[in-house]
């Protein structure tokens, strides 16, 4: 941690000197490239405008403690928790934003207005097609979501 940086008293002249270092010199050792803490995977929902960078796509994020996903998910490190020390995990340090629709493979976010999960993820349009094969309880649930999202759009 850069604790010491934190309470160093400001000395502008020195600071500026530091800032003046030629840019090129820093590049070869770029620590960013290797840093798994930086989100590099783009996630775009096909159902809404959601657009985020995430850290992981798959079933078992290395930073998720004790859980895994039944299908590939777009997962980010929990931005609302202080980060754990590097290489360590911590409880609930993950948020899944979405997955791919099991039918059409489009990326879709976890919002009830965009996707539905019953045994697998479906984007709402695919879910609408699929629902006739489902038990009535599941149908009732997705219909509720469909009409709610319809209502929102109008």
């Amino acid at each position: 941690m850069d604790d010491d940086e934190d309470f160093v008293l400001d000395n502008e002249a020195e600071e500026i000197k530091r800032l003046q270092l030629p840019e090129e010199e820093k590049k070869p050792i770029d620590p960013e490239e290797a840093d798994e803490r930086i989100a590099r995977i783009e996630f775009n929902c096909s159902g809404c405008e959601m657009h985020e960078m995430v850290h992981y796509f798959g079933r078992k994020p290395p930073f998720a403690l004790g859980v895994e996903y039944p299908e590939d998910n777009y997962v980010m490190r929990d931005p609302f928790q202080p980060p754990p020390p590097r290489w360590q995990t911590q409880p609930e340090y993950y948020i899944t934003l979405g997955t791919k629709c099991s039918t059409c493979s489009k990326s879709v976010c976890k919002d009830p207005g965009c996707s539905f999960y019953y045994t697998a993820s479906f984007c709402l349009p695919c879910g609408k097609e699929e629902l006739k094969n489902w038990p009535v309880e599941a149908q009732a649930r997705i219909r509720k979501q469909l009409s709610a999202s319809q209502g929102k759009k109008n």
Partner: protein
Amino acid sequence: MSRKSKTTDWYASTGHRTQLNLIEFSFLDRKAELSGLLQAKSRQAGRSLVENEADFWKFVAKYEHMMLSTGRPMLPHRLAEAELTSVHPYHRSKHLALRLDADELLQEADNEMQAQFRHLLLVYLDFRQAEKFQRIRKLRQSQRNLPIARFRQDLREALDTSRVVIVAGDTGCGKSTQVPQFLYDFGYRSIACTQPRRLACVSLCKRVAHELLDDYGSRVAFQIRFERSRTQLTNIIFITEGLLLRQLAVAANLDQYDALILDEIHERNLFGDFLLGVTKCLLRARPQLKLILMSATINVELFHGYFREEGARLVQVPGRLFPIKLRYLPPPALELKAGQATAESKRFKGTRIDPAPFVQVLSLIDQQYPTTERGDVLIFVSGVNEIESVVEAVQEYATEQTHWLVLPLHSGQAMAEQGKVFDYAPEGMRKCIVSTNIAETSLTVDGVRFVVDSGKVKEMSYDAICKGQRLKEFWVSKSSADQRKGRAGRTGPGVCFRLYTAEQFNAFEAYPTPEIYRVPLDTMLLQMVSMGLPDVRAFPFIEAPETERIEQTILALKQHSALSVEEKITPLGSSLANLPVELSIGKMLLMGCVFPEVEQLLTLAAMLSVQNPLTNRAHTDQRCVRERESLESDQGDIFTLVRLYREWVQLKMRRDGTRQWCRRLGIEEQRFYEVTKLRQQFQRILEGCGMVVASGSDSQLTSAERATRHGELRHLKAMKRRQRFEQPRQRKLLKHSAGRAAEDEEERDEPQGDDMRDVDFRLRFDPRQLSLLERSARLDRHRDVVLMKLLLGCGFYPQLAISDEFNYCKGGGQQFFHTRLKPFLLQHPNSHFAKHFELLKLADSDLLPKPDFYTPKQPLSERHQLLCYQSLLETAKPYLINCIRLPAAQTLLLFSFAIDTNAGITQIVCDGWLGLDLPTPGSGMELLSRAIELRRRWSRLLYAKLDDLNSKQEAPSHSSDDRSSTLWHDLVDYMALDVAYTIRRLLPADIKRLYSHQAPSTRLTELKENPFAVDYPMTPNEEKGGLNVSEHVVYSCLAEQQWTLAMDAALRAEPWKCTRCDLELEEFDVLEQLVHRPKCKGRKAQGQKSKPTSAETSTEAPTSSRSHSSGGYYCDTCNRELKLSKIDILRHKKQCRNNK
């Protein structure tokens, strides 16, 4: 009862005996047994799967309750992994898109109950995922809903086609938070965004980091005076305008940034205007740089026109305002209930505002809007005193109408106090915020429905003629009035009550006066020159200040030797531009650097540079006054403050709490922390440029101390880390106590929390450094005080004031003082000298009998004093702020820009406004000669230092230490010279016949050597007459007076004998004496006794031997060999003696 029987039926009908029935069972009863199931396998013990176990158990309780109340007490059977993928039959678990990873769990679930619990855990985790997902989604939604969001594309196109884009949008349109993020999205990776206020830098940084989901990262950072959070990963930085200007001064082209955002430029403060001009120039030097200017929709055409030739594009963002009903209610239009609420406040002076109209509006609101309709009130008044009167009146009103909660709001408040205005009022109650114009644009309080506008504002203006500031009440501008109005329509339709008429409004100025017209320009102009601007008059000001003021400022800079005659920056000037303080304080610091010890000076200068640490309460609350009494210094308020600071450091040394103590004495503790930081900053800057020798290297901690310190540091760092990850203060529900929102409670709570400022402080200072700091605030010894006062005088010159000649027969309230440019000023009522005005008077015993030939009426004394002040401030009356008292003649002769004398040096006129008469033979000559000699030595030392820096010599000459310490002693001796004189202000009529205008006599022109300053070539002064004998002195240019002629005649009758050698003159002749002075053997011998190395050596090239000044010293009291400077040796001796 019926439900129970129904559920038992259902229970009986199902075949599974193992099913759990929540009617007879609860997980909550098995917490101890089950909590092991929440654990993950981990190297660290007790690693839970849930972030917050308490929250989890709450969820369990709710879940059980929900199952029961929906008639499903039987927990359904669980499915095997394989079953989860088949569509039929329906099971709720098939909606769970998350699995537990059995390999990572600490325990296996070995029975149904445990397995069900595990399942419940999964339900919880899934629920939490949905919750966190929604949090992000909501955040994005609120961003998308900002008015600016629809202009993202416009901004992008504008940036593609132009290098300058102006974004104009009202507060609340989201420009400050979103535009930096847009730029980041467009691919800019080094974005600087300036803010006028430090607080805004910090809060915007936090907000933008949050929106970039980087609360705990450093992509977004801030940089303010004493703090910065930037790292190598930083892409967006919020920085104060002043700091960016400093960066510009050092790295002229700001190459580190690819996009520059100047926010709030409509405020038109000094730095903002300065930045506009500088960036206009910068665009030429940096073709790649993009410049974005952001402003409220105020006078946008001005900015657009200013950047027209750069092809500025304008993006206008409509605000999000609800309709606001406007009502003009000038006070007579309100039915005044006579005397209500005002009778009470009569004990205050008549100048205070009448709070009745404000109360009337509140009662109007009460009549017309039911309290069931939410909505708070925001009252705008002009200043803190006005806030107090209104708050008081509203509180009284609130004793009847108890749904009112009154909150004052102004910039002088502590942060925690200010934060309260953001808290919620309880249901059915209304907040009534009484504010200065701080809530106009800079602070946004949501939930305001009613605005009450007094139409007044207090504004500082600057009088360039007398160099004083004036705080006066004015009508606001139209644009300010509209900003105030707009505050009512941020969360819903609102009402604005204007306590003036529509006609009055129409007569208002269109815009507020830009700050550049209201403040001194010296610091800014100096900075411009030091940035390399060849001619400040050609600077592309957006609105230029009056030419005359620029000229006056340049003249003042020349007088202070910051600029040369050709208006080039001098070494002193560029050093001054490096120091982030007012010029006077900067000068004081630099002049002090020639002395061997600067510790005390640093503390004093830092204290002068912060806002007054004493709060209003410190003077109104008698308890505070009593507590402070014993620490008051009769040398001036600044010395009292340094004493208080020393007490404070001593408390820190004993690890006592300082917060309580500060509150008891009425001190705003934050200021003392600032003093400490500023002092360190001064030290770094001065050490960095070689003006002072780095200190502290010789004070190492012992190993035991180091160990203790190590432990302490670990503890402190842990506290700091904890605080860093703590959640920020949340909006709370306000508590209600008799109209005023409860405040005592929070104050009482406070000390229990960690005081982060204290933690930071202790991290920075080990015990050794603390004792250094404490010593630097020790100003007990007479010579320390004298030196500090001299340096103050040197920095603040020509800010001097003289007592009115009739003060001796008047009381406290009528003690008047005059400066050169402004007569009849008063001591600020809170100052020590206002209460103890006798300190500034001559006592009867100070008056000396006059010689017969001396006829003028003025009192003759050795004890005349002058006041040296930090600033002039005119509020109700014109006041002198932060005065010290100094011996008059000595001070004047040391610092005056122009000193004129008659041939006998019995009359001296300083800067053409103060006349000294010295009717004692020889005393004028003695005083003046010594002053000239000291002054030249001092400036030689300073310039030797500055030249060293400029030629970048390594190892600044230490040998000067010796000379500087003798200079110090000689200065102290000089200040204590007993010389009898009279002092008076010269009137215009006096000045007319002041000078002889005669060419120097032949005796003078034939002088072989300058008797005042050997190496200064004497030239006749064409204008006044007489001879220029040093940089500042014209000898023999004053016309003789009746009494001087009489004195000469009386003396000439007697022979004269030198008191120091055996020289005798047949008659008393001043010129002969002058010529004799530098040659006198007796004087030389005596001089050498007091100063081992004579002053003349200062002209020699400095050598770098330090051996004799820092050689070992053996103390025979404590039997130790010590390496100490001379002063420390003396100090050590004294301490040893005391210890014995």
